[in-house]
């Protein structure tokens, strides 16, 4: 069994004058992550609910084991220790913080289920969510 997937981001703005697009600002990127040498591509997916004003550790890659299970029912392990990216959404307003060796190296915020994305390639990060409002979260982590 293997994993495949994609991360695709597409941003487009344009000044308009009537029906004419005068100036276009575009930024896009699409990636299909693959295995890194002997380390297979793995993902973990976390969902849940949190109250207002709380901090909750969601995923500690130092433990090398997430509670997320793949389609075969096996616990997902980031055997190489690397997280290549995260996507995070929260129905209220909350910040996802990724801590690496005591330093907060990732800090992205979601509100109203707007998806935030980071592409940091971190080694053994610990992810926590700091909420302002009560809500539900989704966190997708990919790496090796």
């Amino acid at each position, binding site marked *: 069994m*293997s994993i495949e997937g994609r*991360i*695709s*981001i597409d941003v487009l*703005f344009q000044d308009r*004058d009537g029906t004419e697009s005068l100036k276009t*600002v575009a930024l896009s990127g699409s990636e299909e992550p693959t295995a890194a040498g002997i380390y297979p591509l793995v*993902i973990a997916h976390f969902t849940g609910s949190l109250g207002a004003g709380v901090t909750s550790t969601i995923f500690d890659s130092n433990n090398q084991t997430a509670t997320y299970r793949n389609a075969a029912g096996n616990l997902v392990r980031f055997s190489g220790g690397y997280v290549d990216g995260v996507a995070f959404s929260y129905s209220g307003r909350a910040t996802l913080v990724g801590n690496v060796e005591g330093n907060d190296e990732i800090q992205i915020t979601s509100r109203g289920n*707007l998806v935030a994305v980071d*592409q940091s390639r971190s080694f053994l990060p610990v992810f926590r969510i700091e909420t302002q409002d009560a809500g539900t979260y989704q966190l997708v982590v990919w790496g090796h």
Partner: protein
Amino acid sequence: MTLDGRVNVDVLFHDKNGTSSIKVVSLNNSVEYPDGKVAVITGTAGTAAVNFGYVGQTTYRNAAGQAVLIDSVERVIFTWSGDFPRALDEYGDTQFYMQSVSGMPAVTYFPVFMPELRMSAGVGTGTYKIILCEKFSP
């Protein structure tokens, strides 16, 4: 003159067994911006850090040639073309810290007044692009 636009984020993974997709993990959203303002900051950087200062003072101009002044940013999209990750952060209040590599964008919601942006020092050279969105609130 008006401005409209969109920000789409689409993340999809699935376990595969032969040709069968067994377990699908999907996280995506698409937001249309019927109004508001955007500013773009682009450039080339070496290994040194780059301080952008207050983003309200960008030199970006709209289609009419007028400077775009931004007071309160709500969303930031950042991309760095280099092979080693580079971080963009807000050093006034440390409101966000996100990284991009190989042209893959990072995205965050970020409501703050007059942020001060900085791109970290790092390995190698590359080009950066930062898009700042003001107002809207879909």
